[in-house]
């Protein structure tokens, strides 16, 4: 029998049992989609985190969990652990081992976008792929006096604020009591492809002042306020270690290598991922078994038809091939739909997550995420082959089955 005819016979068998076929395809598609989604999400989170960490060589922050510092400073998430004194910043700025130091003050927001009190030195930080200026002005200008603000690219979209608009910040990470003073938008930053796209940059002095105003004694002299964290770019590589040593026995401050912390975070994520993988693999195995069972039963149902074809002179190999094509086709369609569904799901998830954290999750697609669908296809195809082979074809008694 020509191959084309075998394929057509297989497809006819499948199309004449739409319920069985569709449920088998559905089961395979769903579990492949789960696997693809898990893989791409993990990959995307990892890539996003790596990209977000890049501009941060070293961070000096208050004593506490280094994870928390990375979360606050790099990802702009969660509440800060504590604050440093302005003098801490000044001494770092004067330190010959430090090339660039950028003060960062968090704690206020405008409609959920974090307000970052900082200094012009932040414009000297480089990062990204390819390496370029991390924070750059795309429209308008950088702030040069108090109560001027530069919006991150995403913050500009989310807040709807335009250059020239004024707004009032609130205390807290999300919502909170509104401060008395208002800021004027003077510029919009270029995309940084990271959490800082949601930031609103203001001078650190204006953060202090907006808090002072709330105390209602406007006469108070400009007090040197606090700094949440200091982004440090060491002059040389050995300087980084020398700095680390100086902070080693500090009881109030600590120096964090964000890249190392991120790596430790990955290994934490990794064990969670492994657990999820086990679940996904189990789901895939179950759906594979279900599919093979469906194949087995539909093969059994066709015992009489196989016997008939056999009696007409179709060799056993032809019958095995027809069953095998049926199974493989079902699995291939299921795996393909699963792959597409998984990608679609991940794009949706990336969109939601990306908006909430500004972590860039536009991970490029790799062959790896197709591993589960491919394994399922291969294993199922082989299983289908065994099932097709095991069917009693040469049994003349099958001809008597009604």
């Amino acid at each position, binding site marked *: *029998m020509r191959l084309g*005819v075998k394929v057509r016979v297989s497809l006819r068998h499948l199309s004449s049992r739409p319920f069985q076929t569709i449920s088998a395809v559905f089961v395979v598609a769903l579990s492949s989609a789960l696997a693809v989604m898990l893989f791409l999400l993990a990959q995307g989170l990892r890539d996003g985190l790596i990209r977000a960490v890049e501009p941060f060589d070293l961070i000096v922050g208050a004593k506490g969990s280094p994870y928390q510092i990375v979360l606050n400073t790099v990802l702009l998430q969660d509440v800060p652990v504590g604050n440093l004194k302005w003098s801490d910043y000044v001494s770092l700025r004067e330190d010959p081992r430090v090339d660039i130091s950028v003060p960062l003050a968090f704690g206020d927001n405008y409609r959920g976008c974090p307000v970052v009190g900082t200094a012009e030195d932040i414009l000297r930080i480089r990062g990204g792929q390819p390496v370029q200026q991390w924070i750059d002005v795309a429209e308008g200008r950088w702030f040069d006096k108090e109560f001027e603000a530069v919006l991150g690219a995403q913050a500009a979209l989310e807040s709807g604020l335009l250059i020239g608009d004024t707004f009032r910040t609130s205390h807290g990470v999300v919502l909170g009591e509104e401060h008395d003073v208002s800021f004027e938008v003077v510029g919009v930053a270029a995309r940084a492809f990271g959490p800082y796209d949601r930031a609103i940059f203001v001078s650190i002095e204006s953060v202090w002042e907006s808090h002072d105003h709330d105390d209602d004694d406007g006469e108070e002299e400009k007090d040197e306020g606090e700094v949440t964290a200091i982004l440090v770019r060491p002059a040389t590589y050995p300087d980084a270690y020398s700095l680390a040593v100086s902070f080693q026995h500090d009881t109030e401050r600590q120096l964090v290598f964000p890249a190392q912390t991120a790596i430790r975070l990955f290994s934490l994520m990794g064990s969670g991922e492994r657990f999820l993988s086990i679940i996904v693999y189990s789901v895939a195995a179950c759906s594979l078994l279900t599919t093979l069972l469906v194949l087995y039963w539909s093969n059994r149902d066709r015992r009489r*038809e196989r016997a008939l074809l056999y*009696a007409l*002179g179709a060799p056993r190999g032809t019958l095995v091939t027809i069953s095998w094509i049926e199974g493989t086709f079902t699995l291939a369609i299921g795996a393909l739909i699963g792959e597409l569904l998984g990608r679609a799901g991940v794009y949706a998830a990336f969109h939601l997550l990306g908006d909430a954290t500004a972590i860039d999750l536009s991970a490029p697609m790799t062959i790896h995420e197709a591993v589960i669908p491919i394994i399922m296809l291969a294993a199922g195809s082989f299983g289908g082959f065994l099932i097709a082979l095991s069917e009693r074809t040469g049994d003349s008694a099958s001809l008597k089955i009604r």
Partner: protein
Amino acid sequence: MNAFVTPFLEIKELRHDYRQPDGSYAQALRLDHLLAARGEALAVTGPSGSGKTTLLHILAALIRPTCGEVLFDGHDLFAAGHSAARWRSLSVGYVFQEMNLLPDFSVLENLLLAAEISSVPKSDAGERADSLLHRLDLWDHRYSRPSELSLGEQQRTAVARAVIHSPAVVLADEPTASLDAENAGVVMDLLMGLCAESQTLLIAATHDEAMKKRFERVVNLRRPVPAAVGPELVSSREVI
């Protein structure tokens, strides 16, 4: 029949025993000798259980007999190196009592699929199918599924399928048993007519007296005496 010419079909000392679930063997068929020529029409009769179906299965090489010889043109059907599938596809047409057709395929597709299995060239198959469909009054039903046909139409389709590749022998296992007398007559006329035209040997199992009368030769099978279970019985192996 000229004794000096090799007969088309010769059966010698044919015997078949089925292995029972308890391991013993049950005698199913005894046929000492039979000769048949091309173009003959032969009825195999006998009560139910006398081995008619078993004989036809053996002639189609669907099962290997326990012992005995089946020679077509002097060649042993069960000789080593003889492909059973090839024999069935090229030389045998088979009509079963019922449920002859593949349910997921139309009448035309059933015919063309059989032709494909028998390696009939595509254009010849189409022509042959068309002429058979006209001749057997199935043209209007060519796109119907078997479930949409009457029993008579289904058996006529089975007859068309059995001869589409111009086989040397057509085996029909009680082809009219599930039909009323009128339809049975039509189907049997067509079957006998088609076989006679193409010098095809027709062997039809039947236990219907009216059918028997139509045949020039009748082979009567008797139910074999119950087997004496013993080690002398050769094991029955089915052809794979």
